[in-house]
């Protein structure tokens, strides 16, 4: 582990990344009607999904009630949808820049575009998380449902923020495919479906058979959604720390994978020219 203070160059890189984060946040705030539409969509989605889970609870589905009070599943879906809807389409930004040639402009700058683009996306996600979080809490208050414990909110918030960064990196990986493929949609669809299946978007993967559950919990898709969501059902310090550990691991691995793909892609562009 390094203990030396950051160099001037590293501080400058961080300052540029912070500025990009602010720019991303400002961009999302500027498009506030879109943000408002997203919040409205979140409300509609939650009305439908909570109706579904309430029906499941009313019908006493065998085995389900053993894992948790079924009404808590509504809060689980609220948390996972909060994260999912906060994700910006970073893959499309990469696709546009790489395939549209704007990447050349970014390569002419002394700071790494990858870090700038991811910081900008995180800034955008941050504003969405605030707006959608406020929407979710308002909806919860209006619905008259029982509130989770205060520590559950803290756990969800922390794991939700890191989970969103994991999601940004997953979509960034899909977007970096644009160096080799004309469209990133196929990559994005694969990532999205795996988020749905292994991340536990609508139902926690703790309901899966043991083998699938093991695979799911160790996947980056669970680091993106499940670990934050499960705190709405079973908030606990050990689960919180387990989630944090998985997220830290995947943040490092995904960041390394993004950096490797980026380096290979830039080498290709420098050799062959922009797409």
């Amino acid at each position, binding site marked *: 582990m390094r203990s030396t203070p950051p160099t001037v160059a590293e501080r*400058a890189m961080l*300052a*540029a990344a*912070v*500025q*990009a984060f602010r*720019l991303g946040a*400002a*961009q999302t705030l*500027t*498009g506030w009607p879109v943000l408002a539409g997203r919040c409205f969509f979140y409300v509609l989605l939650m009305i439908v999904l909570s109706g579904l889970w309430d029906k499941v609870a009313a019908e006493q589905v065998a085995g389900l009630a053993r894992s948790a009070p079924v009404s808590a599943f509504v809060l689980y879906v609220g948390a996972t949808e909060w994260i999912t809807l906060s994700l910006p389409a970073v893959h499309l930004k990469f696709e546009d820049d790489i395939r549209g*040639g*704007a990447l*050349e*402009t970014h*390569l*002419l*700058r*002394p*700071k790494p575009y990858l870090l*700038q683009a991811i910081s900008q996306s995180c800034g955008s996600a941050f504003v969405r998380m605030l707006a959608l979080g406020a929407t979710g809490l308002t909806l919860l208050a209006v619905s008259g449902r029982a509130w989770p414990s205060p520590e559950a909110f803290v756990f969800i918030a922390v794991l939700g923020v890191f989970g969103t960064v994991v999601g940004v990196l997953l979509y960034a990986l899909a977007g970096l495919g644009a160096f080799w493929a004309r469209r990133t949609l196929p990559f994005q669809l694969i990532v999205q479906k795996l988020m749905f299946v292994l991340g536990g978007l609508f139902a926690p993967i703790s309901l899966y058979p043991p083998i699938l559950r093991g695979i799911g919990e160790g996947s980056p898709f669970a680091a993106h959604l499940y670990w934050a969501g499960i705190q709405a059902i079973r908030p606990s310090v050990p689960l919180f720390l387990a989630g944090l550990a998985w997220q830290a691991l995947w943040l490092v691995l995904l960041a390394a994978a993004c950096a490797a793909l980026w380096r290979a892609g830039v080498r290709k*562009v*420098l*050799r*062959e*020219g*922009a797409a």
Partner: protein
Amino acid sequence: MSPAVTVRDLTKRYSYSRPRKGLAGAFAPERVTIEAVSAVSFEIEAGERVAIIGPNGAGKSTTLKMLCGILEPTAGEAQVLGFVPWRERKALAYRIGVVFGQRSQLWGELPARESFALLRQVYDQPKDAFARRLGELSERFALADIMDQPVHRLSLGQRMRCEITASLLHGPRLLFLDEPTIGLDVTAKAAIRDFIREHARDHGQTVLLTSHDTRDIELVCDRVIVVDEGRIVVDQPTDQLRRSFLARKLVVLQSQAPSLSIEMPGVAARPSAPHTTVLEVDTRTARVDQVIARALALGGIEDITIEDPPMEEVVHEIYAAHRR
């Protein structure tokens, strides 16, 4: 003093796969290699303003990209401000400014001021020096009223003023401009040309420009490198080139009559469609205003435009002259 840019036998070849005919050909495509730039050599002194011109596909932009460091050559050497561009791209980035006329470096949804603020961090500019430079550029480019408007709401001319400002905020010693006036109206083009020329002159800045517009070259640059099919055809002072090849204008007249006949020394009619007369005017012999006055005197004129001959034609002429 060492040159700002030194290029020796710079070559860039691109390869791509082309499917052959038939089913078997689809699995064994033909490998095709294109030489975009062929062993180009030149030097540019510090403070010089040089244009690289040529038809589409001549290798202008490819050369520029190699000199900026965003494209590796297949062979040859280059040094820009003492750096090998494709090996020291980031170090060079602090010292050069680049404007691609057809690409924006600003964030469309946000005011230009926000993009400038990010660029300050990207180029590690001290706050005071940055504010002073932005103030100077804002005054010179009359940006005060437009800097706080979202970039996508600006006209193309206003946007280009912001683009050039963005490329100068870190005080680069060398400015690369790729088609900086493309798509602009006459007034906006004039403003951009005046600014580039005066700014470079006042700051001793080296400028390397590519353009399809012969006026960009005449009004901004003091030297012209003409490239065609990846090779340098001519490298000479703009004055010399102007006297030989940039002295022609095309006057296009739309008239009620199927054709017009104007006979003056230095004026030649080109083949054209009915009701359109295209006159090639040699400005060394005839004045454009006199040609237009003569046309108006004939009556029935519905529209008049004055154009430069297409760059392809100018380059072809230069090429032909140098082969003779």
